[in-house]
């Protein structure tokens, strides 16, 4: 496969401003198929901005740099086109949408991808079976099926729902924005099991996280430390442990 030579995601010298303020400042990063990358960094270092820019959220101005996905210009694609090409963003703060049913959204999302690939819509009955199977994996109750998107969910339930959506959509590139924050240890293990179940040589995952705790359960191939909008340090998973021990001051001081 050529995947090992052409990275799935290649970010080159990315500069991004938000309301005139420089957030990403020459970020360069490559993620190969089959890899799990962790992006760590102190608050305000630009982690979430990176996740949102990759998903195509409006309000971010890209002033320089390129992002290619599967060898194509990712930034030229609308958010929904990115999703249909296999890019998935797990939100840090998933939004509640009362009145739009969870399963309806899941099915609409899957059918959007299938339409892109020239496939017919999913069979409703089979699809429900698949959703139920993934729900069991994510420890999500049956009542989920009849509820609105994230409606009245606790913080942990919302995060598990993000991972459930990811499992059903089977993206090629998953970007999880602080999916571990606010989870207790049991929920963290469930989320980690979900992420691990999707690991494969064709897929890649970018975990944006503040703490190394999640990385005990989802072991990354590469850890990047983001400081003031650029990668200040990279290493294997022992870097995350070292960060935990020495604190972010260690790298922020070094990068200054």
């Amino acid at each position: 496969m050529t995947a090992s030579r052409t990275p799935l995601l290649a970010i080159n010298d990315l500069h991004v401003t938000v309301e005139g303020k420089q957030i990403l400042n020459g970020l360069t990063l490559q993620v190969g198929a089959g890899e799990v990358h962790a992006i760590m960094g102190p608050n305000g270092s630009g982690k979430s901005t990176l996740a949102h820019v990759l998903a195509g959220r409006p309000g971010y101005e890209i002033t320089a740099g390129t992002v290619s996905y599967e060898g194509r210009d990712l930034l030229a694609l609308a958010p929904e086109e990115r999703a249909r090409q296999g890019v998935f963003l797990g939100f840090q703060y998933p939004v509640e949408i009362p009145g739009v049913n969870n399963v309806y959204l899941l099915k609409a999302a899957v059918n959007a991808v299938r339409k892109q690939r020239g496939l017919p819509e999913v069979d409703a009955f089979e699809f429900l079976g698949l959703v139920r199977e993934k729900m069991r994996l994510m420890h999500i109750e049956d009542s989920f099926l009849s509820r609105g998107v994230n409606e009245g969910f606790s913080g942990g339930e919302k995060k598990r729902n993000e991972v459930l959506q990811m499992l059903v959509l089977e993206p090629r590139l998953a970007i999880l924005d602080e999916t571990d924050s606010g989870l207790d240890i049991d929920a963290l293990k469930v989320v980690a099991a979900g992420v691990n179940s999707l690991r494969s040589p064709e897929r890649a995952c970018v975990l944006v996280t503040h703490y190394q705790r999640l990385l005990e359960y989802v072991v990354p191939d590469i850890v990047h430390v983001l400081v003031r909008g650029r990668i200040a340090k990279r290493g294997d998973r022992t870097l995350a442990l070292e960060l935990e021990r020495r604190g972010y001051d260690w790298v922020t001081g070094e990068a200054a």
Partner: protein
Amino acid sequence: MGTPLTARILEEHANTFRALPPAGAMEARRRTAIEALTASGLPTSRDENWKYANLRPLERLRFIPAPAAQPVTATDLPAAIPGFARYVFVDGAFAPALSAALNATAAAVTALAAAPDAGRAPAGVPAQTSAAGASADERFALLNEAFATDGAAIRVAAHHEPVRLELLFVASADALAGASYPRVELQLDSQAQLLLIERHVSAGPHASFVNSAVTVDVGFGARLHHYRLQELAPGAIVFDTLCAVVGRDACYRLYGISTGAQSARSTLAVRLAGERADLTLAVVALGDRQQVQDTYARVEHAAPRARTEQVFRGISAGRARVAFNGKIVVGKDAPGTDSRQSLRGLLAGPQAELDVRPQLEIYTDEVRCSHGATAGKLDENMLFYLLSRGLEPEVAQRLLKWAFLEDVVAKIEVAELRRQIEERLALQVHEPLARAESA
């Protein structure tokens, strides 16, 4: 007020009823009403609570009751709701052939034309069925009372099962031929229970003029669920006035779904007269093209510890104007009042107009009143969330419009009615039904 409009109303009234024999109590009320109307005149756009209503059509409308027009058949009517007796009125007149009468001893439904004294409050109960003492905002009820020749008088007694009743008002005449005056006089005795569907539809494409008046008296401990659907043809002009009194420990749930007509104005006046009266007043209005959907809802707390929940969800698209003016007045004899207002409007087009106005007047202490009002565009965070899952922008927008309305519609407990409402709303926001999967 000797305006040309009131002069014309008076003249049409005289021409209409001069020939008819006197008809007892109804005749007397008709005379009182026309006198009161002549003195007060109809509201104008200069009146405080009328500036969003479309009053211009009044200049060219005819006020005489519409003569019998095309015969209406059962196929012109919406599907029946299982378990509900149906009473059909065509251009305000009872149509027994289209109706399926109630098979319950706990309730009596009488056509006003057949029994002109029916529906009148028994001695000792304040009469709510006359609009003559109505406030300035309820003057269209006077117009109805002056011209209506028929209507439904309903009296419900206590029973362990709620009575289920649908009133279907069909407008078939063109406004140039005459007006349709749907009329309901409803009384729930103490501990009575009623599920009432009041539905206004058109038979055929005629641009009808409809002026409906509804009076509601919910007695001690009684429970009323009242679903009001305005689904008239696109050219129709409708003025609607509802006056309700809710007694001690009584519960009134009022849902209004207004999607039809060219121009619709609804005036809802509810007085919580008894201690612990409990009111839910929820209105959904959809405007598109050049439609006007205007609602004025006034809730008066006149007794201690009563509760109000006032909800509005409106979408204005095209060049429509959608307005909701929700007023809650807490009188000096209403300590312990608990009122909530959640009024939300959605602007779905650059040329659409939306006016959402919460008003609160409090004349006592110890009350809990909260209100939230928003008028804006679709939530950007929700929209991006759906796009990030691969949905087309048009699909995502339709889905969010749907969700916005579903917030209220999902609370309608009559399943078949809810299905019909959802079907119609889905059609209007061009969204295939987004119902929950059967789990």
